[in-house]
């Protein structure tokens, strides 16, 4: 004969008809001789009629129409992508590809910067006492942006052409 603990452990499966035949008989034998477990079993059985009291509204009108409209839209979109032959464009916008391209561009930029002699640290010849702003200003003037165009340069030729045109 099964104990209360053991019988109660199987009470749910027994009620749901999920217990093998042999075990079901053991549960039944226990219930027949144990009012405490039997009242527990009755309580479990009492749930089904209660749960039926939960009301179920009908399927909302228009729900299936909404689903079908969305499905038709998706299908059309898919077909349009296929027939236009531009679906490979979608491939270009894959997140991993975009990220990869960004990284590659960054690496190329850094490499070019290094080749052109740019450094992010102060060079020995830069005046240590200058403030950052002063350094920026000095660098600005170092790029001959305000000076006259050197003779023989493209700029000089362009200006000459413009002068001629006037």
């Amino acid at each position, binding site marked *: 004969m099964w104990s209360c603990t053991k019988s109660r452990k199987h*009470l*749910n*499966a027994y009620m*749901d008809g*999920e217990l093998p035949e042999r075990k079901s008989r053991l549960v*039944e034998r226990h*219930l*027949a001789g144990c*009012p405490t477990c*039997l*009242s527990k*079993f*009755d*309580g*479990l*059985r*009492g*749930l*089904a009629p*209660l*749960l039926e*009291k*939960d*009301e*179920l*509204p009908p*399927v*909302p009108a228009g*729900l*299936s129409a*909404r*689903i*079908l409209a*969305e*499905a*038709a839209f*998706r*299908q059309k979109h898919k*077909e349009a992508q296929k027939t236009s032959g531009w679906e490979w464009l979608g491939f270009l916008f894959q997140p991993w590809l975009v990220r990869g391209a960004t990284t590659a561009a960054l690496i190329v930029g850094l490499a070019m910067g290094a080749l052109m002699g740019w450094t992010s640290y102060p060079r020995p010849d830069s005046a240590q006492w200058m403030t950052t702003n002063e350094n920026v200003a000095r660098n600005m003037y170092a790029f001959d942006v305000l000076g006259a165009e050197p003779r023989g340069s493209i700029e000089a030729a362009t200006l000459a052409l413009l002068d001629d045109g006037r």
Partner: protein
Amino acid sequence: MPDCPENDELLLQAVGRGDLAAFSRIVERHQTWAWRVAYRFTGNEDDASDIVQEAFLRLLDASGRYRPTAKFRTYFYQIISRLCLDQAKKKRLLLLETVPDIPDPSPDITDTMMRRENASAVRAALDALPPNQRLAIVLRYYENLGYEEIASALETTTKAVERLLARGRERLRDVLGRRENFFQFPSGGFSAFTRLKE
């Protein structure tokens, strides 16, 4: 509920080949029970509508990859179950974000309590269950599924299903028992049991 398994599997394969008429047939055949599961789980028409719509559209999106190794119903129960549990998770997060730490008796909250009071006790008890217990209860009682079927819908084991049901029932009994004397079995304990056995 209409049940014609071979047809459903064939229909879904046709959907996979772009046949929208087949999709429409599937919606027609299964929307009622899909609605039933979603509504019994959420207790809310808007949330249930969202779940049903999303479930069918996921079916559509996945139809191209569908192989009839799994029964249509099992497959669809799985999709709906996943959506139900996701929805519960989202709702919980939203609640955590919007409900202030210190409850203040604003008209809003009083209003909610009033509505709670008016809602059916059973609905309130179902809502009080943790989502996976509630879903197991819904699939067992309203869909009449066996442990094996519930297990595949919830992507778990039959042992786990047995535990979910046991805990869910225990909790339902606690909540409902506190409200009214719901559990007086009409025809009395042992006699009812012996009659059941006949």
